[in-house]
Structure formats: C-alpha cells, structure tokens
C-alpha cells in the first residue's frame, strides 16, 4: 500500500497529509476557517503580480469574502449542515482553473480534498498552487484538508483514493468517467460525473443591432476563443431569431473578427480539424453552407435543426448557424448533453419556459452572452454545497 504513493507528485500537501486525509474531521458549511482562507487566497489571486490572467482573476473575484457571504445567504439551513468527509477529485484537462473550482466546492461544503490535476501543463495550475501554498502558511489549520497531486495513469492510486473517499467528483469525457468508475467507492459515498456537454447561443438579431458591437464581440470571445471554444459552456451553435438576421450576422462576424485578429492564435491542427468537420457536416446536413474569410472562424449555416447537431462539436472558432422562425424550434436540441444557453436580447425567461414546458432533459444554465464562463456553486444543475454535505435534522 505504501509504495504505490511513491509515484505521486505533490503540488500542495505531502505524504503525511495524504495518510491522514480520510480521517480529518469535516467542517460546517461556509466555515469561518474556509471563508477566511479563500478571502486571503482571493486577494493574492487578484494581486498586481498576477497580471493578464483573466481566468485566475475571475476565480479570485469569486472567492472574495463578500461574494462568499452573499452566496451563503441562499443556504438558509447552512448551520444544520456538515461536510461528508473526504472528496476525491479528478480534474479536467480542458479548463486550467477547474481543479481549483472543484476544490472550492468541496471546502465550502466542509470536506477535505484530494485533487488529481491533469498531466497537461498549465501555467495557471502552477500559479494557483503557489498561492494556495502561501495561504496555507497563513492558515496552517487548513493544511490537513488540501492535497493537490499529479500522477500518471495509475489504477492503483485511483483505486486507493476512491476506496477512501466519501464523495468523488470526476470531470472529463465519457471515457474518463467510465474508466475512473472502474474503481469502486464505498457503498454510501457519492459519485458525481461532470461529462462533456453541449452549449449554444440564441441571438435576437434586432436586439443585437441596438447594442455596442465591440462589447458583444468581446463577451462572445471570452465565452469561446478564450478557452479555444473548448469549455462545456462554449457555444457551438448560434440560433438567430428576429427580422434583420442577415444584417446582424454580417455585423457579428465582422466585429468578432476584429477581436480574433487582435487576440487569437489558432493552432495549425485546428485548420485541419475544421476542414474535416465541414466535410462531415456537409455529408450529414443537407444544404449546409460554409462561410469563412480565413480559418480563424468557420460559420456553417444549416437549414434544418436536428437533434444530432449536438454531436458536431468543433473548437477553436467553429460555429454552426441556424435561423429560426420562432424560438420553440430549439426544443429538438434540448437533449441531456445540453448545458448552457447563452443569449442576446430579452430571452432569459422565455428560454426557461421553453425548457420546462417542453420537459427537456438538458439545459442547466441560461445566461447572457459573456457570462458563459461565470463561476457558480451550482453546476450542471447540481447545487454542490448541498450535494457535498449532509443535513443533521433535529426533532
């Protein structure tokens, strides 16, 4: 048992902490220790030394005391709740800061955490872990609760940690989730899988034409190109409604191009991937039409909305486009895979009504364009502080 852990690299914590991690006492929801710790981390993540890392800044902003205390208010029974114990996290490889978000969910809920980060090297991971280590010096009482580790694919380690955990959070594709689930967890432990999802945008063309185009383009860029259009919440399809759709499309493409020309460097392989997606989409969807100025943005106009569009997920700037006669047409694609609808125009409540009245299995978030990457304690329809804690009822 001992030697399997020799292959672990510790970004935060050490082997002694690992040996005790399943025994540390759980904490209440939003405990003072955790809120103080995050508040200090927040200041560090938003400090001047870490410049130009907008995702780290977003994380820091989310962890401010004011923001956490506001969030706490919606948990009216917080005083009656306590964490399950230890949470084992398998972090994803597409979003650099997601490992930290997952850690936040567990700590806020009162749990100790073992976070396995992807072997893909992200500088954001190094920065955040460095700052966490600094904060632990300030709050040594939290040290037994945080382990951030890397290890190569190793079933023995995954098995051991799974066998210890009270809850397991797996972020990744279907294959990742199925592979990790081959390692059993104790009978009463909780297993949450955050699989790859599909997201799309709905734009009211007439409302869009009244807005500041540059700001919209910047917002849309942040939801898409910023993470190579590879986040679960990155839209892959734009559904246009309204009267002046043709004009709006043209303006939208032009102002987005102004953003990508300034900020985006596409990988070479993306050019080849996009060509393949166009060819495959052409075979699948009748009368599809490819529009592009160069390979940075490919617009694929389709003339029918069919449910398997959710399987066509290209990245790095590849957008299917559909012009709908009415908003209800989107119901065919509200499948279980659907996560986020971002929108422009006065559409939020209308979209929620459609999701609920059509009895859709999918769509957990409806947010304005630009807020696709927002952090939230509710994710994929799950209220994490509730899911990761137990309520102690007294009668």
């Amino acid at each position: 048992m001992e030697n399997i852990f020799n292959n672990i690299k510790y970004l935060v914590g050490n082997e002694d902490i690992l040996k005790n991690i399943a025994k540390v006492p759980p904490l209440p929801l939003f405990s003072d220790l955790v809120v103080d710790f995050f508040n200090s981390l927040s200041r560090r993540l938003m400090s001047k030394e870490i410049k130009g890392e907008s995702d780290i800044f977003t994380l820091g902003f989310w962890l401010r005391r004011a923001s956490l205390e506001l969030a706490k208010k919606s948990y009216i029974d917080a005083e009656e709740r306590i964490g399950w114990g230890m949470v084992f996290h398998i972090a994803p490889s597409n979003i650099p800061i997601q490992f930290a978000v997952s850690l936040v969910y567990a700590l806020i809920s009162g749990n100790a955490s073992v976070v396995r980060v992807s072997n893909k090297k992200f500088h954001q991971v190094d920065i955040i872990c460095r700052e966490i280590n600094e904060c632990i010096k300030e709050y040594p009482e939290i040290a037994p609760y945080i382990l951030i580790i890397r290890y190569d694919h190793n079933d023995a380690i995954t098995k051991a940690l799974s066998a210890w955990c009270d809850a397991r959070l797996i972020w990744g594709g279907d294959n990742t989730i199925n592979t990790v689930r081959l390692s059993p967890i104790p009978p009463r432990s909780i297993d949450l899988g955050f699989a790859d999802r599909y997201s799309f945008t709905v734009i009211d063309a007439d409302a869009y034409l009244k807005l500041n185009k540059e700001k919209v383009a910047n917002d849309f860029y942040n939801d898409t190109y910023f993470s190579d259009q590879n986040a679960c919440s990155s839209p892959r399809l734009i559904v246009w409604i309204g009267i002046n759709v043709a004009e709006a499309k043209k303006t939208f493409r032009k102002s987005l191009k102004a953003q990508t020309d300034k900020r985006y460097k596409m990988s070479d392989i993306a050019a080849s991937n996009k060509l393949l997606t166009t060819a495959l989409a052409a075979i699948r969807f009748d009368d599809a039409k490819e529009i592009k100025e160069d390979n940075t943005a490919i617009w694929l106009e389709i003339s029918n909305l069919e449910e398997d569009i959710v399987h066509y997920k290209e990245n790095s700037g590849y957008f299917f486009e559909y012009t709908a006669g009415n908003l209800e047409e989107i119901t065919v694609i509200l499948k279980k895979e659907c996560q986020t609808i971002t929108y422009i125009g006065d559409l939020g409540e209308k979209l929620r009504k459609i999701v609920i009245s059509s009895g859709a299995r999918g769509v957990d978030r409806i947010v304005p364009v630009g807020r696709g990457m927002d952090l939230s304690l509710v994710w994929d329809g799950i209220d994490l502080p509730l899911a990761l804690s137990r309520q102690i009822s007294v009668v």
Partner: protein
Amino acid sequence: MNYEKILKLEPFGITQAEKESLFLGELTKLIEFHRKNCEKYNKILQTFGYESAQSVSDLPFLPARIFKESELISVPKEEIFKTMTSSGTTGQKVSKIFLDRDTAANQQKTLTRIVSNFTGKNRLPMIIIDSPSVIKNRAMFSARGAGILGFSIFARKKIFALDENMNLNFSVLKEFISEHKNEKIILFGFTFMIWQYFYKALKSIGENLFMKDAILIHGGGWKKLANEKVSSMEFKAALKDVCGNIAVSDYYGMVEQTGCIYMECEKGHLHASTYSDIIIRKPHDFSVCNIGENGIIQVISLLPKSYPGNLILTEDEGELLGIDNCPCGRKGKYFRVNGRIKNAEIRGCSDTFNR
C-alpha cells in the same frame, strides 16, 4: 487525355508550367466525375460553395481524415474488388480506400513508372526488410502489406530479411547477397522496421553485409524514429555503415494515393512525379506558401477514380524547396517533409484519464 496516356509521359520530364495546365484540365474532369458518382463528395463541394476554378490551387480538397470517418466511393459497389486500409494502431480508426480494377492496376503501373526511374528498367534481386507474415493475411490488407506487394514487382527474385517473429535471418541474407554479388540489389522496407529490426540487429551481432551496388528504398514516415532522435542523415550513414556501398532513398506517400509516391533523389530532395503534385498551404487561410515556407502539405494525383481522392490535405507539414531546378535534373516541384502537424497545444479535449 486518359490516364493510360498520361502514364506514357516521362515520370519527371515535364515542367511545372506544362503540368499546371494538364492538371487543371484533368482534375476538373475528375471532380465532375466524382460529383456525379459520389453523392457525399457532391454534398461536400456544395457546402464548400465550389463551382469552378482557374488554377489547380483553387480546386477543392478533402481532409485526409475524411477517409477514416466516412466511406467515399465513386463507382458501383459491386465493382470494388479491394479495400485498402491504413496501418492504424489498435483502437484507432483506419482509412478505408475503395479500389476497382482500373484504379488498382493504375496504382501498380504508376509506382513502376516512378520507381524504375531510380532503379532502372530491369527487375533486380530484392531483399524485403520485413516479415513474410505481413502479406500472408490478405483479409487485412494494410498499407504495409500493400507497399511490399507493390514493390515486389521490381523483384526478379526476392527474400524476406526477417522471420515471422521479426528476427533477422542473417544466414539467408548473406547467402542471397553472395549469390547476387555481381548484380545491383534492391532493398525495400519501412523506415522504422529497417532501423529497429535490421540495422540494430546487424549492429548488435557486429556484422557488415559489404554490398557493392544496392539501393535501399524506404518509406512510412519518421514519427517513430524522431522519437528516437534519429535524423535522415544519421539513418543514411548508419545503414551505409552496416550494408556497404548502398544508395538510400526515402519516399513519401500515403494509402489515400497509393502508387503516387514521392521519391527522394540523389540530392536528398523529395520529387513530385508527372502523375502527382504537392501544394504547401498556410494553416491560417489555406493560401499557398512561398518556397521555403513551412505549411500543410496537400497532395494531388490524377490517379484515383474509384474514390474521390485526387486532392487531399494531409496532416503533415513540409516546405517547397524549388521548382524545375533540382540539380538532379528532374523537373517539377521538389520538397521536404517536416513531420506531422503539431497537435499538442490546443487545450484539447477534457479526456485526461483515458489511455
């Protein structure tokens, strides 16, 4: 001009300017043929918005991976007599290329025209640096097996240098070489196999074949050898070190355009033949690169008829070295392959845990 007539042209004898006008005409006709006979291809060109083109570089091209994701056929299914697959590793999708008799025959004829420009008209004794088991299983007709069978046509007499378990058959090899010591000998194999099971084996037993006149033709790519940090120069020097006086010629080719290989000349340059061509494109917008500029390699061939594979964007990067002016005297474009397109740094799919 039908393909028979084109094959009569000298394999490296026509200038780029002559080739451009020949290719524009022929490819335009081929595209129309495939559009009529392959509905999927027709839909792809509709989506691209292709109607006509004024130059070869404006003609529409397919991504090489489409042959892994979709079955594209331009003749009635009953005319397909052979399906070739790429040699993907287990679990990976493989390319499927559908051949009718004409296209298969033209592949062999084209290969013969190109390679005999390097080896001469006569058939020669041949050493295949591979295991005979590769061609035994005809049901699994892989690119490796197809390459060996294709090149076997240049053999008057042939032996396999490796046994079923990829061990070097040194005594057989030695005997064959001494039997043909006054003749030119062809050695053929795949770059990595040659390095791993032939060169390393000879080196480890400390033997030299002392060949007097031989040409080693090898292909299949450098990816695995690049992992071992072996360059083309080192490969050549190493092989000469264990074989004696031999010429070493790499070739570039792919299952999607079997037969139309790009041979390396005495100056170390890969050459497009009269029957095929390359265009180097910029990833940013697929516009054409200048000489010396690295980009994605597009391959063009007049050969494919039973499937729409005349214009294909590969996933390799390379650069054009020159046109019509290689010191070896061959006309047309000559180029270098710089490896596979890097696919590392896109933040990628979130599957971190998958093997």
